[in-house]
C-alpha cells in the first residue's frame, strides 16, 4: 500500500472520528428543545391509543382496581391524576406528581405505589404524618378504592 493511500486513510479515519463527535453534539442540540407538544397533538395522542388501551387492559384489570387518585379536601380539592403503573408522590415540593399548597404537608409527604394488583400508600418521613382514618401510616399500607387518606389538611381518595 502506497504512502499516499495510507495518508488518505489516516485523514479519512480522523474525519470519521470528528463526524461522530459532531453528530453526537447535534443530537444533543436538537434534544435540548425536546418536543414542545402542542394542544392538538397532546389531545390526539391519548385519544388514539385510548380505544385499544381501553379494550386491552380492561379484561386484564381485576374489578376494584382504582384508576384515579382524587384530592377531595384541602386547598387543592378537585385535582386528580390517572393511575398507571407509575408511583404517585404527594407533597409541597417541586419534584412530586401532585403539588399540594397545604402548609401542613411536607415537601415530599407520601407516595402511592402499586405492584400491579393493589395500591399502597407510604409515608415518606413527613412531619405531620399520613393517616388512614385515625391510624398513622408507618409502613406501606394497602388502600382500596374509596378509602380516604389524610395528609395535613388535605384528603385524597382512590376512585375506580
Amino acid at each position, binding site marked *: *500500500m502506497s504512502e499516499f493511500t495510507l*495518508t488518505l486513510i*489516516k485523514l479519512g*479515519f480522523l474525519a*470519521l472520528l470528528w463526524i*461522530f*463527535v459532531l453528530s453526537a453534539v447535534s*443530537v444533543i442540540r436538537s*434534544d435540548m428543545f425536546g418536543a414542545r407538544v402542542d394542544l392538538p397533538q397532546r389531545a390526539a395522542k391519548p385519544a388514539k391509543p385510548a380505544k385499544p388501551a381501553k379494550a386491552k387492559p380492561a379484561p386484564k384489570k381485576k374489578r376494584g382496581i382504582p384508576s384515579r387518585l382524587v384530592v377531595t379536601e384541602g386547598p387543592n*380539592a378537585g385535582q386528580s391524576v390517572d393511575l398507571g403503573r407509575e408511583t404517585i408522590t404527594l407533597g409541597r415540593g417541586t419534584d412530586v406528581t401532585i403539588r399540594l399548597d397545604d402548609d401542613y404537608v411536607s415537601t415530599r409527604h407520601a407516595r402511592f405505589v402499586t405492584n400491579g394488583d393493589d395500591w399502597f400508600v407510604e409515608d415518606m418521613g413527613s412531619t405531620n404524618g399520613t393517616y388512614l382514618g385515625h391510624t398513622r401510616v408507618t409502613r406501606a399500607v394497602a388502600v382500596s378504592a374509596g378509602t380516604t387518606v389524610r395528609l395535613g389538611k388535605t384528603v385524597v381518595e382512590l376512585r375506580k
Partner: protein
Amino acid sequence: MSSALAAASDAFVHRKRRGSELLLLALALAIGISAYAIIGLARDNEVPADLIWYGGGLTVLAVVAHLTVRFRAPYADPVLLPVVVALNGLGLAMIHRIDLSLEAADSQFGPFAPSQLMWSALGVTLFVLVLLLLQDHRVLQAYTYTLGLAGLGLLLLPLIPGVGVEINGSRVWANIAGLSIQPGEIAKVCLVVAFSGYLVVNRDALALAGRRVLGVDLPRGRDLGPILVAWAASMAVLVFQRDLGSSLLFFGIFVVLLYVATERPGWLVLGTLLFSSGAYLGYLFFSHVRLRVEGWLDPFGDPDLFDQIVEAQFGLAWGGLLGRGLGEGSPTRVPYAWSDFIATSLGEELGLAGLMAIVLLYGLIVERGLRVALLCRDSFGKLLSVGLAVSFALQVFVVVGGVTGLIPLTGLTTPFLSAGGSSMVANWAIIALLLRISHLARRPDPEVWTPGADEDTQVVKLR
C-alpha cells in the same frame, strides 16, 4: 378548563430519540470496525480475515444494548450508548494493534484483544441485566449502608494477605478463583451509591454554616466527621495500597457530592486542603509517592528510571498533530501501552486531533451525566448521577493527565479503552445506571388534571 389546557400546551416533553441513537450507533460501529480494518491494511497490506468475527461481535453487542434500551428505557438519553460503543470499539482495535506488535517482538505479554472482547461482552451483559432488573434507581437508596460496607470491603480486599496481589508496586489487585480482578473499580460504583444515599438523608445538617473565612462559609467543627472518615479511608488506600489514583478518585467523588448536596463551597476548600496536606505528608514519608512526583517534575533527569513517561512523551511528539496513522506508530516502546498508557498510544497513532476527539467523547459522557442530574426529580437520583458523571471526569482527568505529564502519574484505567476486565464491566454498569435514571427523568409525567374556575363553582339553584 381553558387554563389547564393552556398550561398543558406549554408542557415540555422529551422525545424518545431511539432513532437518533441507532444512527449514532451505526457511526460508532463504523469507527471501531474501520479502525480494525485500517490496522490490518497498514500492517499486512490486506483487510484482516477475522474482521467478520470482530465486527460481528461488536455489532451484536451494540444491537443487544440498543434493543434493551429501546424496550426497557425508551426515554433514556440517546447519546450515552453510542459514545460508549465508539470508545469501546476504538479501545479494542488499539489493543489488537498493540497485540500485533507484541507478537512480532515475541513479548511475554498478550494477546489482550480476545479477552478484552470477552470482557466487553460481559460488560454488556451486566448493562442489560441492570436495565432489566432495576426498574427504579430509588430502590438502591434502601441499600445505602449495605453498599457502603461492601464498597469499603472491596476497596480494602487487596490488603488481605493471600487474596491481594502486588503488581508493579501497587496493591490493587485481588486474586479470586484464578481470576485477578481490580475490586476498586466495582467499589467505585458501590461507594457512589452509598455516598448519595447518605448525603440525601444528612445533607441538611451538613449544610449548616459555621465560621466565615475569606467570604467562604466553612462547615461547623462538629460536622466534620464524615469528611474525615472519607479522608482517612482514602489516605489508607494511598499508604497501604500505594495507589494515588484511586485515593484521589474516591475522595474527590465524596467531596464533590458533599458540595453538590449542601451547596456550600466551604466543603471544596476544606477537601482540597485535606487532600493536599495528606498528599504532601505522603510525599515526605513514602518513597513511592516521591518517585511519582519526581517522574512528573523531571522525567528526563533519569530517563532509565522514568522510561515509561519519557517514551510516552516521545510517542506523543512523534504523533504530532495528525498522528502516524493507525498501525504505523510504535506504541509498544512504552511499557503497559495497552492499559495505563493507551491514551498516549492513541495519541501517537491518531495525533492531537484524534486524542482531542477522544477526550471530547469523555466530555460528552460527563455532560450527559450532569444533564441527567439536572432533569432528575428526586434528590437521590440527582446526587447519584452527579457522582457517576464525576467519577468519569475524575478518572479520565487523573489517568490522561498522568500519562501526558500534567499531574503525577498514577495507575488508573482509562474507562472503556484500557485492557482490563473489572473496569470494563463496572463502567458498563455505570452507563446502565445513568440510562435508567435518565429514562425516569425524561419520561413525561402522568397528567394532573386541575379543574378550571368555571367547573368547581357550579351554580346550584338558589331560591
